[in-house]
C-alpha cells in the first residue's frame, strides 16, 4: 500500500526515518519558530535569562510576570511566569510553540539596564520571598500599564 508524500518531502518519512526532526521543524508556526530560535535558544545572543520580566499576549489578554523557569525540550519547551495579582501569587506555564501565544515581549532583562542577574536557572525560591515579589510585581504593573 503506497501513500503519496507531499511535494518536496522524502518518502523515507513514511518509514519513520527522521520523523521527529521533521516534525520539530514543521509543526510550530513561523512565529513560534522565531521564538524558539531567538528568545529560547541558549546560544542566541538575545536569549532570555530567568529573572527577566516578560509579557505574553494571549487572545484573552496579556499576562506578565517574572520568568522563573525555562524547561528546554526542543519543540515542547515551556516557561513559567510568576506574578502577584491582588496579593495572591499566580504562576502560569506556557508552551513556547503554543499557537495561542501571539507575542512575547521582554519588559526587562535580567543582568541588563540595572536588572539583577540571577544566580539560578530556576527561581522557585521566589515563592517563599514575598518581599522580592512585591518589588517585582509593582515594576511589572508599571511597565505593562
Amino acid at each position, binding site marked *: 500500500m503506497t501513500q503519496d508524500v507531499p511535494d518536496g518531502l522524502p518518502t523515507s518519512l513514511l518509514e519513520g526515518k527522521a520523523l521527529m526532526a521533521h516534525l520539530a521543524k514543521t509543526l510550530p508556526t513561523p512565529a513560534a519558530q522565531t521564538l524558539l530560535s531567538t528568545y529560547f535558544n541558549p546560544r542566541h545572543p538575545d536569549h532570555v535569562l530567568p529573572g527577566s520580566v516578560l509579557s505574553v499576549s*494571549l*487572545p*484573552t*489578554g496579556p*499576562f506578565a510576570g517574572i520568568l522563573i523557569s525555562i524547561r528546554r525540550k526542543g519543540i515542547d519547551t515551556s516557561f513559567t511566569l510568576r506574578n502577584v*495579582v*491582588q*496579593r*495572591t*501569587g*499566580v*504562576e*502560569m*506555564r*506556557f*508552551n513556547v510553540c*503554543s499557537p*495561542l501565544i501571539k507575542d512575547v515581549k521582554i519588559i526587562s532583562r535580567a543582568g541588563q539596564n540595572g536588572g539583577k542577574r540571577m544566580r539560578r536557572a530556576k527561581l522557585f525560591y521566589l*515563592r517563599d520571598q514575598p518581599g522580592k515579589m512585591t518589588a517585582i510585581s509593582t515594576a511589572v504593573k508599571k511597565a505593562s500599564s
Partner: protein
Amino acid sequence: MLGLKGTMTIIDNSGALIAECVNVLKAKSTPGVGTVGDEIVVVIKRARPISHNAALSNIVKVRRGDVHRAVIVRTKKEVMRPDGRYIRFDDNAAVLLNKKKELLATRVNGVVSSDLRMKGWGKIASLAPKVSRYYFRPRSI
C-alpha cells in the same frame, strides 16, 4: 487538589476565614480529591467575630464549626487549561455556597481561577474583582 482535611481560605464576605474540607461532592467512582470548580463540603475552622449589630439583623452569620458547601476557586496544585497552559496560585481558596449552589455571601475578594467558568460557575467568576482572564474560550462549532 483538596481532599479530606485540606484547608483553604474563604475569600467571600460571609465572615468565615479558614475552612477545612470534609467531603468532595463528585461521582462516587472518582477519587475524593477536589480541584478548581468542584463543590465540596467544609467545616469552618476560623471565622470573624460577629458584631452585636450583625447578630441582630438578618445577615448570614457564619460561625466556627458550621458545616457548609463551598466551591474551590484557587488551588496551589497547578490546573491545566484545555490549551495546554498551567495555572497555579499560592494558596487554596474557596467560596461558600448554600444548598441551592448559590453564593452564601455577597462579594468575593481576590483573584479566582477562570476554570470556574468552564465548570459552570460563571456567576462566581464574574463577581470576583479581577478574574484570571487567562483562559482559552473554545470557539463554538
